[in-house]
């Protein structure tokens, strides 16, 4: 199997930066060991597709758009009226299994892992940094752990996922990954940050 390369390889030599007071209040890095599959139905086949996916994965799908459900290491997100994004870890690649279960007339299964880069930011000030470019409410009451949103960052499409109280993941198009990286590290400068490549092996 071909190995996916990181488009952020060329920024890996950049160093961490001190913020005000010489502190490094945030950690920023890339996560690589994940897979993403999009499953989408036609409006007339939505119920049938959901039954099929439930049966194939042995899970319940989240009920409302914007809801995410963690099942083991899998994360199932309802991203649209008849559309789901399913994240898995490591060798748990479910695209082939879903493709054989979902007939073309019922819907589509699209592997998106190769097209996205995941950049994460962790720390008490993450929300303030992200708020400099994202215009959605990231308050933990409105956007707690496992909340996600498809939104825009300076005209580029981005999925933001809150993976813990202090940590957010940005899934961005591979072609915009370096630009997003530059934006994020620039926005984080006042707080200072430590680069962390441990999840980017």
């Amino acid at each position, binding site marked *: 199997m071909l190995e996916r390369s990181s488009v952020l390889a060329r920024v890996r030599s950049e160093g961490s930066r001190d913020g005000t007071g010489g502190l490094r209040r945030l950690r920023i890095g890339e996560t690589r060991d994940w897979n993403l599959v999009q499953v989408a139905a036609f409006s007339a086949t939505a119920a049938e597709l959901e039954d099929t996916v439930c049966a194939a994965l042995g899970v319940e799908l989240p009920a409302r758009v914007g809801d995410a459900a963690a099942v083991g290491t899998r994360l199932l997100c309802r*991203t649209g009226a008849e559309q789901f994004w399913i994240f898995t870890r490591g060798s748990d690649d479910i695209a082939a299994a879903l493709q054989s279960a979902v007939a073309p007339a019922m819907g589509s299964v699209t592997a998106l892992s190769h097209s996205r880069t995941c950049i994460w930011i962790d720390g008490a000030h993450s929300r303030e940094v992200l708020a400099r470019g994202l215009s959605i409410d990231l308050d933990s009451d409105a956007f707690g752990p496992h909340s996600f949103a498809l939104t*825009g960052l300076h005209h580029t499409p981005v999925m933001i996922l809150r993976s813990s109280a202090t940590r957010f993941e940005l899934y961005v198009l591979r072609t915009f990954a370096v630009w997003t990286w530059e934006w994020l590290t620039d926005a984080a400068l006042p707080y200072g940050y430590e680069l962390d490549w441990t999840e980017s092996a």
Partner: protein
Amino acid sequence: MLRLSCPICGTRDYTEFHYGGDARKRRPEHAAADLKAWHDYVFLFDNVKGVHREFWQHLLGCRQWLVVERDTASNVVVSTVLARSAVGTTASVSPGAGASREGNT
């Protein structure tokens, strides 16, 4: 800033959306030979100063097409519904301009 309430994703800045044209127009049938009808459809616009019924696509969100009623003089949004649920209630649901732009999927 203009904010639109996507029935699926919630209220977002207009920058996540793409304007898709007048939602009250009815496109002539493909085989229609009446050139005046085509001329009026393609070129003439009511260009309302007041409440305008128009298409928007939530390009950076769920990518659904919406029908929005917006006051062009004040940017106050009167209503927002999914274009698919507006079928039958509006003259036509056939978004025109710029349906092909890079989005989230």
